[in-house]
Every structure is written in C-alpha cells, then in structure tokens.
C-alpha cells in the first residue's frame, strides 16, 4: 500500500478492522511521515474527544418548547388513499406481495413454456391441422351409393328431365 492509501486509513484509524489496522501499522514501521501523521491525528482526536465531552449550552428549554408547541398546526386527517399507500410501507406486506409476484411470474413462464412445447412437439398428432376429406365426406358418399335413398338433388333432376321431355 502506498502513502496516499494509508493517509485515508489513518484518518479512519479508529473505525478500521483489526486486519486493516495491521496493514497501517506494518506500513508506518518503514514510513516516518505516515507515522508522524498517525501520531498527529491520534492527538487531534484526543483533543476533540475531550472537547466533545464538555457540556454544551442547553438554551432556554421552556422558551424553545413554547415556540415549538405554538407553531404546531393541527395535523389534518389522513385521507383514505394515503392510508392505503401507508399500508404498503409495512415490510411484511411488501414481502408478501413480492412472493406473490414471483409466484405469478413463475406460473406464467411455465405456461408459456409448455404451450410452445405443445406446438412444436411432433409426438402430438393434431387431426385438426390435417383435413381428412375422405372421412369428412364418407357419410355423403354412402348416402349417394345407397339405392333406397334418393337425394333431393336427384329428385329435382329427374323431375326436370321428365318435364322437359314432355
């Protein structure tokens, strides 16, 4: 580590981990300027700590409280919409909604995946895609070949023919 990196660590010395402090201590063994800086910074923090422990003026607490309470405006009632939004600030509700969302996303993804497999999977026979006309017309073919039943078309055709002949 070079002196520039160490300098920042020196100013944060009291918050460093043991490992980080060891690095600094190792560096200052061979660097007199950083060692001097560490001594100065430690001395500075000692002075500041001492000053910070001195009592700070408290001010006129009664006057301050009077001014605060006088300046309070009656809090308006929270409307229904704000109450609903405030509900969403509860962590448990956020977590529950997160879980539900992830579950729904997973469900939709699985549905989409299985649908795409269905379309491209050749093991599934789709009769709908292939129009079997023979099977479709089988009923009508049978009826036409049967001598007992005369189709309406044949009846009309025969009657027209007879009429025309006469």
């Amino acid at each position: 580590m070079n002196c520039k990196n160490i300098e920042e660590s020196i100013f944060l010395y009291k918050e460093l981990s043991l490992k980080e402090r060891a690095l600094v201590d190792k560096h200052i063994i061979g660097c007199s300027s950083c060692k001097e800086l560490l001594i100065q910074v430690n001395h500075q923090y000692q002075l500041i700590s001492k000053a910070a422990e001195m009592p700070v003026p408290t001010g006129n607490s009664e006057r301050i409280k009077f001014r605060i309470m006088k300046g309070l405006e009656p809090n308006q009632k929270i409307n229904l919409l704000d109450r609903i939004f405030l509900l969403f600030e509860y962590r448990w509700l956020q977590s529950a909604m997160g879980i539900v969302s992830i579950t729904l996303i997973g469900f939709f993804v699985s549905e989409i995946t299985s649908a795409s497999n269905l379309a491209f999977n050749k093991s599934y026979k789709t009769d709908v895609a292939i129009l079997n006309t023979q099977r479709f017309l089988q009923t009508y073919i049978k009826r036409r070949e049967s001598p007992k039943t005369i189709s309406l078309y044949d009846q009309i055709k025969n009657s027209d023919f007879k009429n025309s002949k006469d």
Partner: protein
Amino acid sequence: MHQQTVRVSVEVIDEAKAGSERAFGVIVDEYQTFAYRVAFRFVGHAAEAEDIVQEGFISLWKNIHQYRTNIKITTWLYRIIANRSLDFLKSSAAKQRKNHMDMELGYFIEQETTPLSELEGKELLNVIQQAADTLTPKQRAVFVLRDLEGLTVDEVCDVLSISSSNMKSNL
C-alpha cells in the same frame, strides 16, 4: 463521546402520529436537549440554534405520520437538524454573522471556583469551534456528526445522504 440516546415509548409515538399534541410534547421534552446540542455544534450561536430546533420539531410534527419505529427518532432528528443547519450555514445570514465576533463564546464565563481542567476544556472547545468556522458547510457537518457526536462513517452517510467516498473526502 456518543451521547446516550433517549427513547420514548411506542404508544407515545403512536399517539403523536394520531395527532395528539400532548404526546408530541412528550417527544419534544425528551429530544429537545439533544436537538439543541446538535444544532449548536453546527452553527455555534444560540439564537440560530433555537430557530433550527423550532423548525426541526415543526417539520417532525408535519411528517410524523410517515415515521416508522424501525428507524430511531434520533436518526430522523439528526437528518432534520443537519439539513436545516447546512441550509443556514450556506445562507447569506451565516456569512454575515461570521464577520462579527461570536459573542456566544462569552457563555463560558470563568468563575473563581471553576476548576483549571474545566477552564482548559472550555478554552479548547472555543478553539475548536473557531477552527470549525473555517470549514465548508459539508466539512463542518462531517466534523460535527463524526467527531463531536461520535457517529460512524455509515451513520454519517445515512444522515447526510452522501456516499462513503464523498464523506471521506470531507474529513
């Protein structure tokens, strides 16, 4: 150095959130000294510190319905007081006041019975206060919160809403 945090019960906070000025008065009683100390350390002047504390608590009252008990009230107050103090320090009023002798230092009046160590401590505080006057508002904020109030780097970043690298550049 880190002052002991005070606490109010959750019931009092809930009452204040419901609009009870009496309950809010309890909160003011508990945290007023703390807020004034922080404000005074920022601005170094009693009148400004009082104004900042007043505005800070009024702001807390207006937004108390958003308060969640997973955050300490002291953290909230640190943010409010720090922001208002920074606004003041950046304002023209602060710059004008800097040009005058700070009569607040006369608060530390020496008495015949005052122990020598206490006098030395107060003199040291005066010197540090004067040195802090030369800092930029942000540097001063970092100095007050970290060195005088004893907050950690992460806590300072949280209060001032700045990154760790930004905070370290203001050490």
